[in-house]
């Protein structure tokens, strides 16, 4: 492997950690190991953990402001706002949520100042929640957790190119395989599929790598940038674009992956759509027009570390109806952990 390819592989291996974290946390929740406690995620960017969320509600605590409203599904109900607490604006709320946590997943931030997040993680430990920290090895935020590490509260976990620390109980649960437990992933996917809790297909690539294909209700991923759109999403229960044809979608993973999106109610061709992720403008690999809508196939690059996992789309004006909204009717993501 040449140097650029090696660098790329190392970056991807680090970014792929959220897939493994999602699989592990979902398996914990599914096994009942979390009991009545809440899984809580500390993060400074907007992201989702769809597999864990299929097993349990999640409390998200943010250490940076967020600018979008996303949603969870309610059994027999309308979508409800996904619970995301701004720790700076609502510190008491964040503390109270952590007190009820049985599991605290910490997405170590890229930037240097992670003191607020480390303080929250310490509260989770005080509340006897199990702690798992994950991120790229070079993330600037690791320094803020040195105190916890020195106290002996956290142990390193085998995680390929990523850096992962876990409290003793979790480290034990992870076992020698560490985070990259292919068998766990395959078994979990089969269980969830049988129980119809998630539409996920996992294929073993080798002893350490998987290929995942996740089909997910796009309402779980749509992110509304305005109040009006958020309330329309809640009312209609669909993953809507706004009336101008602007929409945003959370990506389940930060590593490069492929996506297929079904865009519905489009009134004209959408080849000229603007699609942007971070500072990059994307062109679809293919657009297939069917009776169900337009299938958009995308090769998604990595989400830059420290950025929201948000894909932004704007449709051509003539594709947007005058009397309704376009929506994303289906979403499928495929990723290889290798």
């Amino acid at each position: 492997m040449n140097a650029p390819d090696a660098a790329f592989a190392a970056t991807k291996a680090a970014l792929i950690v959220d897939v493994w974290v999602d699989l592990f946390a979902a398996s914990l929740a599914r096994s009942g190991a979390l009991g009545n406690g809440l899984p809580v995620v500390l993060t400074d960017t907007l992201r989702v953990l769809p597999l864990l969320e299929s097993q349990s509600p999640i409390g998200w605590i943010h250490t940076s402001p967020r600018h979008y409203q996303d949603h969870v599904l309610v059994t027999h109900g309308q979508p409800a706002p996904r619970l995301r607490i701004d720790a700076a604006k609502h510190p008491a709320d964040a503390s109270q949520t952590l007190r009820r946590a049985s599991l605290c997943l910490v997405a170590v931030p890229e930037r240097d100042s992670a003191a607020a997040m480390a303080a929250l993680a310490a509260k989770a430990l005080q509340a006897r929640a199990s702690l798992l920290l994950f991120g790229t090895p070079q993330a600037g935020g690791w320094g803020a957790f040195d105190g916890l590490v020195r106290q002996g509260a956290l142990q390193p976990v085998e995680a390929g190119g990523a850096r992962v620390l876990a409290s003793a109980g979790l480290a034990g649960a992870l076992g020698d395989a560490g985070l990259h437990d292919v068998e766990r992933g395959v078994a979990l996917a089969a269980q969830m599929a049988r129980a119809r809790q998630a539409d996920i297909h996992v294929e073993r690539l080798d002893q350490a790598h998987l290929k995942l294909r996740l089909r997910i209700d796009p309402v779980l991923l749509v992110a509304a940038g305005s109040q009006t759109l958020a309330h329309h999403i809640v009312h209609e229960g669909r993953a809507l674009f706004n009336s101008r044809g602007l929409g945003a979608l959370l990506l389940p993973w930060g590593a490069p992956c492929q996506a297929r999106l079904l865009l519905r109610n489009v009134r004209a061709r959408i080849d000229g759509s603007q699609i942007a992720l971070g500072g990059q403008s994307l062109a679809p690999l293919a657009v297939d027009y069917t009776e169900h809508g337009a299938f958009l196939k995308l090769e998604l690059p990595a989400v830059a570390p420290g950025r929201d996992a948000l894909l932004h789309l704007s449709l051509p004006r003539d594709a947007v109806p005058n009397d309704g909204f376009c929506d994303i009717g289906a979403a499928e993501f495929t990723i290889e952990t290798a």
Partner: protein
Amino acid sequence: MLSNADPGVRPAPAMAANGRRRLYVFSPLPPQRNGLADYIVEYLPMLAQDFDLSLVAEVGRCGAAAAYFPGSPFEVLDEAAFLARQPERDAQVLYNVGNNGDCAYMLDHLHRFPGVVVVHDVSLFYMHQVALQMERSNGMFNQWVRDTGYEVPADFVARDGSLGRTPGLLYQECLMVRRIAESARGLMLHSRYAESRFRGGAFDIPLGAENGRPLARIPHFVLPPAPPAWDAYQVLQRFGIDTNDILLLVPGFLTGNKMLYEVLVAFSRACTSHPRLKLLFAGEERADEYAVSERIRQLWPDGDGPKVTGYLDARELDILLGRADLSFVLRYPTYGETSGILPRAVMGGGRVVTVDIGSYPEFESPLIDHVSIGAGLVDQLHASIESLCASMPKASDRAARRQVEAQRAESLSPRALYPRIRALLDAAREVAP
């Protein structure tokens, strides 16, 4: 990261490596026919010199706007591309906001990505209404109004929270600026009147640099006078204006708030004593607001009354302003707007009559007389016509006036005013959290 050679990836233009900070500007843009587009265009070259400049167009308008600026030193972005780049810690945003539907898209961004807001119209009620209509969310309007500290009487609110009726007073009283003030990192208004009304509308929001919201009062620019038109005579002939006529002009769209009836009455009194007087309504009629042509027919059944030109392009209007001996720039009610016609009228060299309310008195010129709204308005208008007839200037005087006004206008040129805009952006950056 995937390389550029991989399919499906086109890298965005590189960020500035020259030390200039990034500035995003939200505005209606050409070819949209909107005064705000014309406004921002005048400042773009200077902004592009000082900043790494990106214009953010409303979805669906990016392509046309980009095509309007080929080879320019700035980029034109789609809203999606802007959002995908956020947050950018070191970037600033400038919102060029007016009370029209073309600005509604900015409401989705200016609260989340705070920036400096140029408030062209101190009442943004209509813009908020249109924004909600576009989003099919009329029912949220009552709550939005409440958020600004105003309560619409229940008789005007439908059960679903939408406005069933919108009495004109709401547009005057309910400015809908409070939340914008709260989010803003800086504010710009064009007049003392607009500033005082804005402060009233943002009643509980502390303004000023010491509160993280520097506020600057920067007048709307005045463009230099148009060069003499080669076909001015033909244009004037087309509208029946002879060399000996004393031309009275009402310039611009003939909306219901331009006191058209009062002008007609004043003219009808004056023209009995001064047969050379001619009155021209130089603009497109808005018959649903005031049927001026119909009224003229009633008052001058022989057809020898004032004329209505219909729609004029800017060049034709400047020709008429350059010929008019007296222009009427009247407004009631005013929404605090800054008149673009007023400076163009004085640069035509003729006398101008305007109102003493709102922002109108703040444009100063010795050619301007002010009149008070009220029962005596017709008498005042009549008096100004009589005064004109009693002391008609010579052609040389007129030329001198034009030159004086052109020189005065230089201090209000975009280039002259730009440093104050730059200072506001710098001040906003200084106090940003």
